[in-house]
């Protein structure tokens, strides 16, 4: 039995230690806002926060993160930066199909938490790991800047 700290709550889960966090969230805890896209940390759809860091949950074994705080898309709106990012996403109508946007928002919140006034190069560096097949990149860039200005 492993104990995970997710969105401020402790969860006991009976899973193998090598099981990636993604599948624990989705299949065991029914936190389906975090998405599966590639399984090899290439697309960013599964991005969550481990502490303040954006991490790819599809390659993160749960045995390695016991006791450390995990935040998912379901709870990010409760943080000031998360709330600003979600609002900017809606104000600029970033979203199309929406499947990648949980991961985009988690990466953007981590960026703005570390770099409150990001330049384009900062945005490129922080967001290039998140693929959007609908091609919302133009608006993602604009929304990150808008959220930064609101902070």
């Amino acid at each position, binding site marked *: 039995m492993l104990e995970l700290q997710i969105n401020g709550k402790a969860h006991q889960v009976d*899973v*193998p230690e090598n*099981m*990636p966090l993604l*599948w*624990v969230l*989705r*299949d*065991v805890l*029914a*936190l*389906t*806002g*975090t*998405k*599966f*896209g*590639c*399984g*090899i940390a*290439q*697309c960013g*759809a599964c991005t969550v926060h481990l502490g303040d860091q954006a991490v790819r949950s599809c390659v993160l074994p749960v045995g390695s993160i016991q006791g450390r705080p995990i935040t*998912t*898309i*379901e709870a990010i*709106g409760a943080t000031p930066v998360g709330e600003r990012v*979600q609002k900017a*996403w*809606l104000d600029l*109508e970033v*979203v*199309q*199909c*929406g*499947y*990648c*946007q*949980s991961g985009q*928002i988690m990466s953007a919140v981590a960026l703005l938490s570390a770099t409150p006034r990001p330049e384009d190069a900062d*945005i*490129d*560096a922080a*967001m*290039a*790991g*998140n*693929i*959007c*097949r*609908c*091609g*919302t*990149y*133009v*608006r*993602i*860039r604009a929304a990150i800047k808008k959220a930064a200005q609101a902070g």
Partner: protein
Amino acid sequence: MSAGPAPKSSQSPQAPLSRRAFLKVGAAAGGGLVLGFAIPALRTAGLAAATPAFFEPNAFIRIDRNGDVLLTMPQVEMGQGIYTAISMILAEELDVAFDRVSVEAAPPDDALYANPALGFQATGGSTSILAFWMPMRQAGAGARAMLVEAAAAVWKVDPTACTTATGEVIHGASARKLAYGALLERVARLQPPKNPPLKALNDFRLIGTAAKRLDTPDKVNGKAVFGIDALPPGVKFAVLMASPVFGGKVAHVDDGAARGIAGVRQIVVLDDLVAVVGDHTWAAKQGLEALNVTWDEGANARVTTEEVFDQLKAASERTGVVAKSVGDVAHAFSSGPTVEALYHVPFLAHATMEPMNCTVHVRPDACEIWVGNQVLSRTQAIAAKVTGLSKDKVIVHNHLIGGGFGRRLEVDGIAKAVRIAQKVDAPVKVMWTREEDIQQALYRPFYFDRLQAQLSDGKISAWKHRVVGSSILARWAPPAFVNGLDSDAVEGAAELPYNVPNFHVEYVRQEPPGVPTCFWRGVGPTHNIFVVESFVDELAHQAGKDPVDFRREQLAKTPRLLACLDVVARESGWGQPLPTRVGRGVSVQSAFGSYLATVAEAEVDEHGEIRVRRLVCAVDCGVVVNPDTVVAQIEGGIIFGLTAALHSQITLARGRVQQSNFNNYRMMRINEAPRIEVHIMHSTEAPGGIGEPGTVTAAPALANALFAATGVRVRKLPIDRKALAAKATG
């Protein structure tokens, strides 16, 4: 943001109702009112051949006593904003506040919810607004006219003395008002009007505004439920693997190691695939990797991309089925020199961000399915066929779609999932890994194009184009495949916006060995406009003309497109000097009932690496329902098209797809994304489609910019960086 066959762009998207009564009314439970109305078939030459000429009511609006309006939506939301746009049209003509309209997804039922542009219940081909524009307006206007009639009767005044606003009928002279909700029982007894007056375009207060999307709030907080998120009680998780060679069969399975993995519950072996069922996806995936499967690879075990290419090239020597012929091309060509070129474009996967998945519970008396797809009635039908149950025993819960692009116009995955679920005594979520999603798919066809043209007096005097490739329609909509001609395969080639006196376009069907093909965003025009607009650019160069001027002088018959071209030439700074190895390219198109002109600006370094700097688009898609959605669809469509032009191809070796995941089937990322400027042309014409056009325009505009930058003509995709470098250094 879809893909699918398009209605002929030469047809008017206006589809006037010809029947006497188009609206039916009835009382709903709780004192509400239900309005049923008909979305008539579009008079298209292609798919509508399979469409009945006359529909029973196939769309439904419910008005409740509190004034809330519920629209039963036959079209599927996949990010294109269709829930919002169709609701806006209804709210406009009915004259209710937009936030009183909500949407429910229609259940599978071709008889009720067929897409009039396609003949069955499908969302694709940028057809939704085009098909629903007039019927939705007429239904809203008809309902509003009846509400006015009912209120006027209450007040004993002339209906023409009454107006409406935000859910109320108003008699201005006596300052009286009645809410719609109070009039419903009276309306239910009225005869629907035959020709209710529509609002004048300049009276619109909602259409043409950037109303907020209805589907997005839950997509930023993790609450939106896609098919992959369905978790019915007791669900098990399966991961599948089909034969790596198309058409191969399972010969032998050694499952000893897989059975030893914690959480693995069951191994399912079917004739053409294996699946492992577990307590969670991880167990199933581990189990699948531990299986040792021997395949009987069958007839396609040696297929290579080179073989496919050679077959297409050989087929291009054959005479094809004539798609369009005007004047006398042969005679023209015999009179002087011509320009010739060969083009080809590769197989493409859709790589939707939500991988293929389908959750199924097969019980003795029913089959229940949780999925997101673009063809609900086909989903139901294939499950009925596999299980032997009648269609009414197949319950389909459709979900939001994490990217369609044509892939979810297919039900191959539904069939596989149902076959697996038949072996499992519980609901089972069948998951495709990304590798399986890319390697066990249906693909945009590999096309080969042979072109020849003649110039006289700086204009195109004769044009011959032979399109060679797989026919999607022959498989997907057989009644639309008429006399060997695939109207989708030649869409964008058979009708040019230019005046060309001698014109001949042919289609040669050549199916690739074993490789299944399907629609891909932008459908026929994605391939054809790349070829046509690149070749037009070659002819401009041959004629010694500026590419914009060359097009402008030949677009007289297509004034809406000419106007778009003028806007992008101005807004892009066309003709102004650029640094060395930076170029601008132009592309124009008339497709999906919309007109689009684009100028791309790109630079190429000495190694041939490309940076796309900027795209400027002008689009005339008729009356714009939601301008922000139009801009978003063009932006996203361009990124989708640039991704393909710069990065994408599916190749085959030993009968196997060689790409597997985003590391070797690359997507454009944010650091590569150019600036995109979209200019919407003011128009009072009927609305055209907007999901596909951005994808269509990207590759030709970019390829022509690369020619301007380097002098190297791009005649195949994806763009070969080495060829661009060789010219620079050699």
